[in-house]
């Protein structure tokens, strides 16, 4: 799994950080998403899929 987050689309709601805190964080300056781990281990895949599903701005894509 490869994780990509579009910082232009991100609205900073933070739901991804709550779903998968090992994979997503927010930039201190503006709260916009940063990906901590672009190829997370298998045990985190479900949480990452959930983060993508609930992202209000559809900013997270998985490949």
């Amino acid at each position, binding site marked *: 799994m490869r994780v990509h987050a579009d910082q232009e689309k991100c609205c900073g709601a933070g739901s991804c950080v709550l779903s998968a805190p090992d994979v997503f964080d927010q930039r201190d300056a503006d709260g916009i998403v940063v990906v901590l781990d672009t190829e997370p281990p298998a045990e985190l895949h479900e949480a990452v899929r959930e983060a993508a599903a609930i992202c*209000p701005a559809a900013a997270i894509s998985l490949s």
Partner: protein
Amino acid sequence: MPIAETLDTTLDFPAARASGCPFDPAPDVEHARREEPVTRATLWDGFSCWLVTRHQDVRDVLGDPRFSADATHPGFPFLTPGLRELVDGNRSFLRMDDPDHARLRRMLTADFMVKKMESMRPEVQRIADELVDRMTDGRTSADLVSEFALPLPSLVICLLLGVPYGDHDFFQERSRVLLTLRSTRDEVRTSQQELLHYLTRLAESKHDAPDDGIISRLVARGDLVDTEIAATGRLLLIAGHETTANMTALSTLALLRNPDQLARLREDPSLTKVAVEELLRYLTIVHSGVPRVATEDVTVGGRTISAGEGVLCTINTANRDEHVFPDADTLDIGRDARRHVAFGFGVHQCLGQPLARVELQIAMETLLRRLPGLRLDIAFEDVSFRHDMGIYGVHALPVAW
């Protein structure tokens, strides 16, 4: 209003909830979700718009930039006279589209991000404990709304914004008028002007005496005029206390009415985070729908919504959609409810949700831990529900312990 497709039925909205089931959405809207999920509605002011009631359709509308949140469009549906006045008076970014919305919202995203809100836990916990100390001091009963549920988020948002909490009677009363369905236009206009005047003066005072609150920081940027700061401050102030206050009181009542779920949460407080998500789903206090207007013809749930037509997304029925939440009408504090849309969806999704979560988790955990004998102090039938308000909840919640 142009109507692209004529439907036989139009639903009066907001529709009444069933007596005895005050936690459930109105039966007429639930019926629409099952039988005609995108349907016509007639609002309190005679205005006609579409209701979008299913989970997927609600997400489709709120996530689609062809639906505008700009309330200056003629087709925009207003839920209360007060909400119309909020736009006429001075629009906040809640009622703008990108790029204006994003420009103003991004000035605030850092203030509400998860890490920052998590770091406020000790402060929020201190406030919650002090409120319970005061409420229980020599007494065995109180109104949970006025003594705990409302002051907790009000104190916190005042702290974050740099608004003097001593003025809470002033802004809570004006906020109540703005969110009441039956307020007259004059009442609404006066409240709106007084609130904006207050916040404009407050912003001016921060020029000379800055503090570390959000209003001071917006002033210090130098690229916003005081009316923009006042509109933003008003949005944060109202949204920051009305929503969490009502969620706290209504959640407490819902748990008291579901003693098995209450016992489960008391036995295992580690369920609090999960339980709060389920309470957000089950109760969905933004019960009058999230408004948008179509800027192009768009097909939603098989219906064509024409450019210029208004839409209300009823997020409370979306959160009862059994295709997403099996046995959706049951409060199950152990279920994974994270796909709820209680905070909305799309780029306008609630900016303050990390704060709301921290406040609700601390409020519920503190109440259950500190008040093991908590019970309702009046008959359930006598509880006064906020059918008349844009944000649902209870007007008061007399409890004993």
